[in-house]
């Protein structure tokens, strides 16, 4: 069966993309950006009942340099935007962003002078999670969507 038979047992062949993406998809390191009630649901998603560890994304890191998945959970106001942008910029490539909840996705109920109307006005967003706040299951699905996206990456050139 293919080239493995030449080398005997202990060898398999695959593409580098598949191996690297397999590693990335099961070891997402999220950085939490929890600013409101969505942050509480994010914590619930990490805890035992929902257990984000089942998707390999339980290792929360509070340094952006160690992370590749930003979960923006909560209202972002205009005064906070430079901070959010800077933390996003500090993350190393490849990186993904989840906008969790109505506030992060589109400003939520706060149609006011103070609140940013969706974080996609300052950073690119991969997955939007509807809800106010979304249940932990919704966040789990968002992580699965991110995993699907990771699978489409290539090591040579990030699309």
């Amino acid at each position, binding site marked *: 069966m293919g080239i493995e038979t030449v080398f005997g047992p202990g060898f398999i062949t695959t593409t580098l993309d598949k191996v690297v993406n397999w590693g990335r998809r099961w070891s997402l390191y999220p950085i939490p950006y929890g600013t409101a009630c969505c942050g509480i649901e994010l914590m619930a998603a990490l805890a035992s009942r929902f257990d984000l560890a089942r998707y390999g994304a339980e290792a929360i890191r509070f340094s952006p340099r160690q992370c590749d998945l930003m979960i923006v959970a909560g209202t972002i106001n205009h005064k906070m935007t430079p901070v959010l942008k800077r933390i996003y910029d500090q993350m190393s490539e490849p990186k993904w962003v989840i906008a969790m909840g109505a506030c992060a996705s589109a400003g939520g109920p706060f149609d*006011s*002078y103070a609140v940013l109307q969706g974080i996609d006005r300052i950073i690119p967003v991969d997955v939007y999670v509807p809800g106010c706040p979304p249940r932990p299951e919704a966040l789990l699905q968002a992580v699965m969507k991110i995993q699907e996206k990771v699978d489409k990456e290539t090591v040579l050139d990030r699309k």
Partner: protein
Amino acid sequence: MTENRDKDVVADCLEELKSHLGEAASEAAPTLDGIFTIEVQPSAIIESLNFLRDHLEGDFDMLTDLTAVDWMNYPETGERFEVVYLLCSTKSNHRVRVKCRLGETGPRVASATAVFKGAEWLEREVWDLFGIRFDGHPDLRRIMLWEDFEGHPLRKDFPTRGYNPVERTPET
């Protein structure tokens, strides 16, 4: 009984303050929440605070809060802005409320920081959200909003989305 005696103490305090200030003070009376309230002329505010802090039996030594009200929609009540000082006595737990009214154009009043150090940030907040200036304040900057923000959001004529609203994505 004790409650009644306490009320008398506060009423006496304010009565003394009123006779001290003369024309510059209104009648002191308890509002619906039971806190005695006195309205004074803006020019007499520092004197009132000093008087309540130092000279009276109540010794109102703590500034609990300093805030403002915009009465734009109720012109019949008097001048547009009202600055409210809430004082508390840490000894007897008596409370008293001092108010003063300011006009619509360039409202300003003397800073209470000379009497209560803790007024500094409270006055910055009132400046930030109501645009009332405090003369003699050591560092009157915005405290919540960013520096180049335009307007004062708690004024009743402030548009909810601000003076420079962000463009919204058109419906598709």
